[in-house]
């Protein structure tokens, strides 16, 4: 029995996921030397101008790590609360013992019991954003960046940090793609009709779509296709076109303008605000 318990504990310890950490990325300048690493994924995107924000979908192991971190934080908060509660009760007793209303004051404020619902703890997304800097050009209007392999969602175009931002999020509809290790995933070209504070030109139409309900929005993606310019230094390296698929709504983490990605034929469509996977003509309900 004891051996079994020890083995079970050891198994749990080995299975315990590592604590979440911010993503490690490296965006290359035009002259920067690089080699394709088999453990990293590489993104090529043609995106003149604004910074592009991508949101990596955490893996099951990362979600477990986040859950463990959060549970630990909640446990610590409860220990702290117990101390605060004892101090409060002592103060309250003292306060109530003072019978002179002139010197009683308002009395101590009862601390709020921490729960899973009100715990002040970072969101799992906070460590999973990737910024592709618009100003760091690799060649022409192309950016090139190394990222951890995984699934990424196109979050928006913005200048932002954790206190907020300026730009546009695709919070009401976007796409996602997989970035495989050891290869370059070509995201194609991003077109923007008007990004607040950044763009001075506004395109009224693009690929037959005009601005308005169900049509052109402030961001459109033209998937990689033969004939699209590829930086000379990347031409001979392993490269695949991003396989886009429709992706669900996201929160407005940076407090920016809310938008959605322009429909993509065969990939992304909308019925009112419902996001439709155009491959199957079915609504996007859950995470891919």
């Amino acid at each position: 029995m004891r051996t079994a318990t020890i083995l079970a504990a050891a198994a749990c310890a080995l299975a315990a996921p590592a604590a979440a950490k911010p993503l490690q990325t490296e965006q290359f300048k035009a002259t920067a030397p690089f080699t394709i690493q088999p453990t990293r994924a590489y993104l090529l995107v043609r995106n003149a101008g604004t910074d592009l924000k991508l949101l990596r979908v955490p893996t099951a192991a990362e979600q477990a790590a986040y859950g463990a971190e959060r549970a630990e934080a909640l446990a610590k908060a409860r220990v702290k609360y117990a101390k605060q509660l004892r101090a409060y009760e002592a103060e309250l007793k003292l306060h109530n013992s003072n019978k002179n209303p002139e010197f009683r004051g308002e009395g101590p404020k009862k601390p709020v019991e921490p729960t899973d619902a009100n715990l002040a703890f970072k969101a799992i997304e906070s460590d999973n954003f990737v910024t592709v800097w618009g100003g760091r050009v690799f060649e022409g209007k192309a950016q090139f960046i190394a990222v951890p392999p995984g699934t990424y969602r196109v979050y928006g175009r913005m200048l932002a940090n954790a206190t907020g931002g300026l730009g546009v999020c695709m919070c009401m509809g976007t796409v996602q793609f997989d970035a495989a290790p050891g290869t370059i995933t070509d995201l194609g070209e991003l077109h923007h009709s008007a990004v607040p504070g950044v763009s001075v030109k506004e395109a009224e139409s693009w690929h037959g779509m005009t601005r308005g309900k169900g049509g052109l929005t402030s961001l459109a993606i033209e998937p990689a296709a033969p004939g699209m310019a590829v930086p000379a230094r990347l031409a001979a390296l392993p490269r695949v076109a991003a396989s886009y698929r429709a992706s669900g709504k996201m929160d407005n983490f940076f407090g920016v303008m809310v938008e959605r990605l322009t429909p993509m034929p065969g990939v992304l469509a909308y019925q009112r605000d419902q996001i439709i996977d155009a491959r199957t003509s079915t609504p996007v309900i859950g995470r891919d």
Partner: protein
Amino acid sequence: MGMHNMGSYRVAAWLAALALLPSAAQAQTVKARDLSPIEVDPSKVETPALAFAETEDDRRGYDKYFYFSRPGASFADAYQDVRECDALARGVSFHTGTQVPYPYAGTMAGALGGAVGSLMVDAIFGSAERRRLRRVNLRTCMGFKGYTRHGLNKDLWQRFNFEEGNRTVPDEERQKFLQMQAKAATAGRPSSQELEF
């Protein structure tokens, strides 16, 4: 949709202010928000007055003072729609911690909260810009949801709407207003002209 160019000076101001803003670790913590459906008896929600004799002053204010309409929608659907758009317009915090409820359940686990994102906008442009951003986001969001937009007299508008600049509207008051907005949205086909989003 709802996009406005703000000029390069604003970009420069933003870049200058970015370095002065608090780090993520210093960002404020806010109360978690819950978007799971709320059962409300629509018969107990006041239907706001929407009829008025339009003046030129009213017409000039339609950028700010308006209501949404989708005849045929149920009160429950409309209420959920205005709650979702209100939430998206507010922005959320990285530093709060509930799992994402409806309508984001199953799409991306995350934390919800208040308008931490507004710190950035406030630092550069002031609360007036945040109020404008809220209006733009509400219009965009409700537009995607198939609602039409109609102008309203300011006095009537103030009876069931709010702006968030320097203050945060308490949740009880917020929900009361959002319920009335849902009532307005389902009150029937407006006779007034549909405005552009």
